[in-house]
């Protein structure tokens, strides 16, 4: 599964993109974020406050309960500030 990070989340995690194998116990977005927090101190710090984190799967916004599957493109980023 491909993970993409944008804006300050990219800076805090320390990379723009990473490829991970989806662990069998992870079934939804909440589970994925929880698992990612255990990957490194940087991930834990970046994903500490979920109120500041938005997730898109295959380029559509999703909520914490949305299922995740191997092969998904999962983007994790702060609330958007365009316009």
């Amino acid at each position, binding site marked *: 599964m491909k993970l*993409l990070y*944008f*804006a*300050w989340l990219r800076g805090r995690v320390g990379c723009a993109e990473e490829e991970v194998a989806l662990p069998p116990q992870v079934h939804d977005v909440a589970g994925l974020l929880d698992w990612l927090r255990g990957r490194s101190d940087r991930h834990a710090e970046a994903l500490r406050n979920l109120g500041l984190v938005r997730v*898109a799967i295959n*380029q*559509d916004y999703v909520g914490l309960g949305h299922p995740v599957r191997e092969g998904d493109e999962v*983007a994790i*980023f*702060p*609330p*958007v*500030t*365009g*316009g």
Partner: protein
Amino acid sequence: MIRVQREDFDVGAELERLVAGNPRIGGVASFIGLVRDMGGSDRVSALTLEHYPGMTERKLAEIEAEAHCRWPLDAVLVIHRYGRLKPGDRIVLVATASPHREAALAACHFLIDWLKTEAPFWKSEETPAGDRWVESRAEDDAARERWTPALEV
């Protein structure tokens, strides 16, 4: 039409192109967003816009389609820039054309309100205190909510 680009755009030329060859159009509304030189109480010397290529175009196309559903529009144009910009530079152009002004004005307002909360762009400001990411504003969420639920066309 949706365009996401690094380059600047010519507002006059874009608006002319939008209405060219369609005498049904009776009104064009436009919004142009510019880089401000202040962010909070700090002077901003430059702004860098980052986006999520692919999702950006997809969300903007969805927003455009929603505007077409809600209002009788003959043409819609959204141009959004990315990259490093200076105060006074153009960031975004939203333009709508319709036989009558009400639809054009309302759709233009809707498009910029929705774009600000839906399109995956992020701004980083350069200030004397260092670079910092712009935080989203509750006012922008409230402005978007104004357009929910769907209005009757």
